[in-house]
Structure formats: C-alpha cells, structure tokens
C-alpha cells in the first residue's frame, strides 16, 4: 500500500491533538474562571486560558472534520 492510499492524514492527527488540548485547556480555564484555580498571572482577568482553549477546540474540530478518514475514502 502506498502512502497516498492511506486514509489517514497528518492533518487529522493534528486535529485530534488540538481537540484534546482544547478540551484540557478549556477545562482548566473554566476551573480558573470559577475561582478555584490560582490566578497569580498578569492580566488574569482576561481569562486567556479559556479563550485559547476554545480556539484550539475550534481549530482541532475543523481539521478533524476536513480530514476525517471517512471523508477521504
């Protein structure tokens, strides 16, 4: 089987990883937003972890959707 016959793309793996990171970092962001986590960082009121986690989720979901193995058959 040549590589091009493979239904998996590196972009699909990238999407999976970003999706997992998005879940983890969004979760950490929600935890911090709820006031449980330590907030000893500058501009903590911006909740950058929450926004960045959501960004990763969106990018990861887009990559996963476009490079889903089922769509490459």
């Amino acid at each position: 089987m040549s590589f091009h016959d493979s239904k998996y793309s590196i972009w699909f793996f990238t999407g999976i990883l970003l999706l997992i990171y998005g879940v983890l970092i969004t979760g950490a962001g929600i935890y911090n937003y709820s006031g449980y986590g330590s907030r000893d960082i500058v501009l903590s009121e911006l909740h950058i972890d929450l926004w960045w986690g959501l960004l990763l989720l969106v990018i990861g979901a887009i990559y996963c959707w476009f490079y889903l193995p089922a769509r490459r058959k």
Partner: protein
Amino acid sequence: MPSLLSFLLVAPSGLISLGAVDLAVIAIYFVVVLAIGFWLKNQARTGDDFFLAGREMTAWIAGLSFLSANLGSLELMGWAAAAYQYGIIASHWYWIGAIPAMLFLALVMMPFYYISKTHSVPGYLQLRFGEDSRALSAVSFGFMTVLMSGINMYSMALVMKVVLGWDINFSIWVSSITVAIYVALGGLRSAIFNEVLQFMLIWLGALVIPIVGLLEAGGWDGMVARIQQNWPGGDYTHAWSTLGSFTANPMGIHWTGIVLGLGWVISFGYWTTDFLVVQRVLSAKDLRAAKMAPIIGASFKMMVPFIVILPGLLGLAVLPFKLTGEDVAVATGGHSYNEVLPLMLARYCGPGLMGLGITALIAGFMSGMAGNVSAFATVWTYDIYRAFMKKDADDRHYVAMGRWCTILGVLVSIGTAYLVMQFKSIMDYVQALFSFFIAPLFGTVLLGMLWKRATPKGGFWGLLTGTGASIAMWAWVKADPSALRYIALSPNAKDMAENMYRALWSWIVCVLVTVVVSYLSKPKPESELVGLVYGCTEIPSEAHVPLMQRPVFWAAAVAVVFLILQIRFW
C-alpha cells in the same frame, strides 16, 4: 509511575512549576509523536521511502517541515534572549538572514537539486564534481551534525533544569529515545510529519505571549514608550538605522556585515546547502511543489519574529527587573537573558497554557534533533557507507543501515551531550567548526550549479581551501585577538560580527580558488552536466501554469512583504 509523577510535579528548583493538567498536555504530546512513528512504520520499506519520504510530500508539508527543522527550542529561546539584549536587530536573522536565501533556493537552485534526482547535497557534489568533493562534504556534515545535535540536547536539558527543575539525565534520555524511536520506525516521513505537528504546536504554544504582552504594554507604541522609559539612551526598536557604525548598536556590527556576511554568505550557505533543511524539500512530490515549499517556509519565517523577537522586546518593556548575562545571573542569583521566554511564559500563562508553552519548547527541540539524525542517517548511508564501504548491497540492506544509523546518531549525540557537560568549552569550538563548512560549501555548490566551466578539481580545491582559510582565520584571532581588526574590519567587532566577516572571506577564497583551478584544469564535457548545471539543463516551462499557481508569483509576494517589514521597522 508515581515517583516519576511526583518528581515532575515537585520541580524542586525551577523557574516554573507545572500542574497535573500541564503534565497531561506534555504526556499526550509524547504519546502522539510515538503513535505517528508506529503508524508510518510499514510505509518506510524502500530507500526512497525511508530517506526521502517517498518523494511524495505536498508543498505545504515539505514547506512547514523545512521551516520546522530549523525552529529548534534553542533557536526560540536564544533569539528571544538576543532580542532582549540587542533589540530588534536580532530580527535580521529571520529576515535578511533567511528570506532572500529561501527564495533563491526555491527559484534558482531547487530545479538542479530536484532534476538531478540527488538524495543529498553531498550526492549532488558527487554528480557535479566527483567523489573527492562528496567525501569531504559528507564526512564534515555527518561529523558536525551529530556533534551539534548533542550540544543542542545538552543545552535543552540545561534549560529544562533551570526552567522546570527537571533532572538533566531525565530530559536527555526521554526526549532523545522518543526521537530515535519515531525516526527509526518511519524514517524521513515520520520526521517530517512530526515536524508539521511540532510547527503547529510551536505557533499555538508561543503565540499567547506576544498577544497578551501587547495588550499589557498598550500595543506597539506603548511597548516602545515603555522601553525608552526603562532603557534611556538605547535604541532597541530600529532594525537598520543604528547599523551605520560598529559602535552605534549593542551588537557591535556594521550593515556591511549584516548584508554581506549574514544576508549573503551565511544565510545562503545555510538555507541552500545545509542538508538538514534541503532534505525536507527534496521529499516534495514534483518540481513545482519543491519550488513552492521554500516559499511557503519563507512566508512563515518572516512572521517568526512575532513569537520570538517580540517576547524579548516585551521583556524589556514589562519585566519589573533587569536580566543580565549568565555569569552575573549566577553570581547574583538573578535571571539571565536566556530566561526571558520562560519568564514571559510564566507571566501570562496559567495551568494548561503553561503546559502548551512548555510542549512548544520540547517540540522545537525534538523537531531540530529529528532533522539532525534523519539527515545524518541519509548522508552516512548513501554518501559514506554505500559510496566507500559497501557499494553493491540491496535496498533493504541500506534501509536497515539507515535505521541503525538513526539510533547510532542519537547515541553519539547523547555521548556528546555528556562530553559537553564535562568540558563546556567544547561547545564554543564545535559551533565554530560547524560554521567553517557552511560558507565554502555554498561557494562550491553555487559555482557548480551556475558555471559550467567549474571543474571537479576546481570544486574540490575550492571547498578545501575555503574551509582551511576559515579555520586559519578563527585560529589567528584566538591566538592574537588584535587580528580581529583585519578579519572583522574593526577592533570593536563582537563575536557575531567576526563570524559574519570570516564567513565572507572564506567564501571569497573558495570562489577564487575554484575559478583559478578550474581554468587550469580540464572541464567535464557538457553531456555530463545535463540536469546539473545552468545552461546544460532544460528547466520545465511554467508558461502554461496560471499566474496564481506559479512559484515566481508567490516568491514576489513574499519579497514585497519582506521589503515592507524592513521599511516599517527601519
């Protein structure tokens, strides 16, 4: 694993402490890179598969990998430190020190590399100049690549110790064994795919700092105002206007050194002849993809200062204390320039994001190391082992040799890392040695591609004397520091300026010797230069290709943005 987990979580003396979510982010990264290696294991059966990724990479994958192999974590941290120390002048290593050379590789040199079907840069020298030139460049490249890999490995482990408090042995062994596994399993394809993943992580992990930093500083103008307030008298935000004399800028460099030494010789030497990066482009699926790959790489390279240089400048603006050199930092218990990126990471990133930032640094280190060992395995197997030791083995034998060589390369790198740990001065010597070969090699390859009168003897003697001249100049300044006034044209020149001028002189020596010896020796017949030299090679026309799909169009677009950046930050 509880003891390992507690060891990582405790981080006894580090700058940053990690939480469980940060460690999960890092651990998942290691699982995914290894999974990619196992996934690609069965697709690296032939020599072309293992050493050239089957020559079927798209322009995007080859281009991102081309850039990622160069984006090591030491590069990220080192240039952020340089930006704190020297200001925006450090951007020249990403702009004039990269973009023109990458575009030149794409439009002028790539057709010859690709049409000749060479598997490596030493392989091209063999086709053009013969076995002597190939042997000289292959041995020097292989030797220096694994040594550099070891030095980078040690430096990265040291960073992990300073930043996270991790044990040096732990960092060295875990990261290098991971790289050895995924490259040995999947060859260049595995290295390239991981480099693409690492590229994404580096950007997504490092981009938080400039965005939040600019918000804190009040935008670019606010940052400049704060720097002027914190550092009165210094000019850290102009890239060209302070290069009129050696003493007007903290780097002690003149614009001629930047333009001719860095922008011409060192940059063109590295980006067009260092097999570590060229190998990624050789994996492209066709000539158009091979030409587009460096252009795609250049478009992102121009933007790297946003995640590397800008954090250093933001450090000048917002950090409440001043960073110093390593010696002063150790003596006073303060922070050194090299810690500016981790300090900014700790300033803005909470749990989770911190793990992503550290993963970006680890990813940078691993992409650089994978680049080194995959290039080493190719050059050793094809240009040394097959050329001089075992010429008639079958393809499977060479693939097996490539896999073993990958592991051997990693082990030698680990050995070098421990050697450097004992004798730190080795680091300076090896880094200087590496630079000896780049500039003359560029002279040899350039004349080989563009001048059909260049002869095998001219190519070999030019390369040898250029390298010898570089070593001699370095030794002269070591023995007599006052010689700096002749090599670097000024007694005030600093180390970087000396490197620029030494590279320029050694390139000139290489070119002159190649020309003189070529006129004194017999050239190859033109029939033997087909596919190797300008004027003897038919380059496929792109006249029928729509404008938007032509590499030259996108190269022009990148060049325009490059010029705008120079004017904006003049």
